[in-house]
């Protein structure tokens, strides 16, 4: 059983489109996160959700919006995609301050 899963694994789209990436965890964790890995492999936190409440929101454009229908899911919606949004997006989950477990990543390419 995959602990943290993401769909799709690859996403290729045109500038200006709206897209979503889904994330699910079956670990029973109470906190979920989204990270962005840029072309230089640098990883940066974007959002975290704890019990369906947004805890932190780093300085990301408001075109990005996390949505959590329940504790096991944290989806990432991106509006009006730009070239600079091309990256690998990772979902992660943890129980409070403990280890964060990462999904396999979604490679987003904006043309």
């Amino acid at each position: 059983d995959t602990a943290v899963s993401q769909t799709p694994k690859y996403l290729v789209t045109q500038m200006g489109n709206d897209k979503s990436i889904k994330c699910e965890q079956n670990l029973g964790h109470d906190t979920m996160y989204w990270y962005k890995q840029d072309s230089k492999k640098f990883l940066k936190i974007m959002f975290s959700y704890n019990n369906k409440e947004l805890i932190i929101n780093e300085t990301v454009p408001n075109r990005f919006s996390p949505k959590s229908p329940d504790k096991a899911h944290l989806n990432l919606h991106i509006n009006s995609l730009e070239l600079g949004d091309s990256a690998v997006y990772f979902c992660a989950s943890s129980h409070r301050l403990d280890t964060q477990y990462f999904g396999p990543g979604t490679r987003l390419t904006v043309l």
Partner: protein
Amino acid sequence: AQSVTQPDIHITVSEGASLELRCNYSYGATPYLFWYVQSPGQGLQLLLKYFSGDTLVQGIKGFEAEFKRSQSSFNLRKPSVHWSDAAEYFCALNSGGGADGLTFGKGTHLIIQP
């Protein structure tokens, strides 16, 4: 603000040789520290973590790391590397103040020579 520095962007090691990857952090208190490994096209896998207690921590795949408060370091070591260890290695810090995300270093790319 907290930060993590991995001074070595690339490291090349011969198979069977020992390995040490450096990590320095900046944080006002004792942080929670992690080492993750990322193989090409894959997600991040936890190697080991330090929260408190014994400053020498053991991880998976024969890795260990030592927390040195005086040097603000958390270096990763392995006595004998295997070709399968070739990957990107990330040191990360969690300040522990609520559901914070991890602050990552920029990574060290490990190349294994036959």
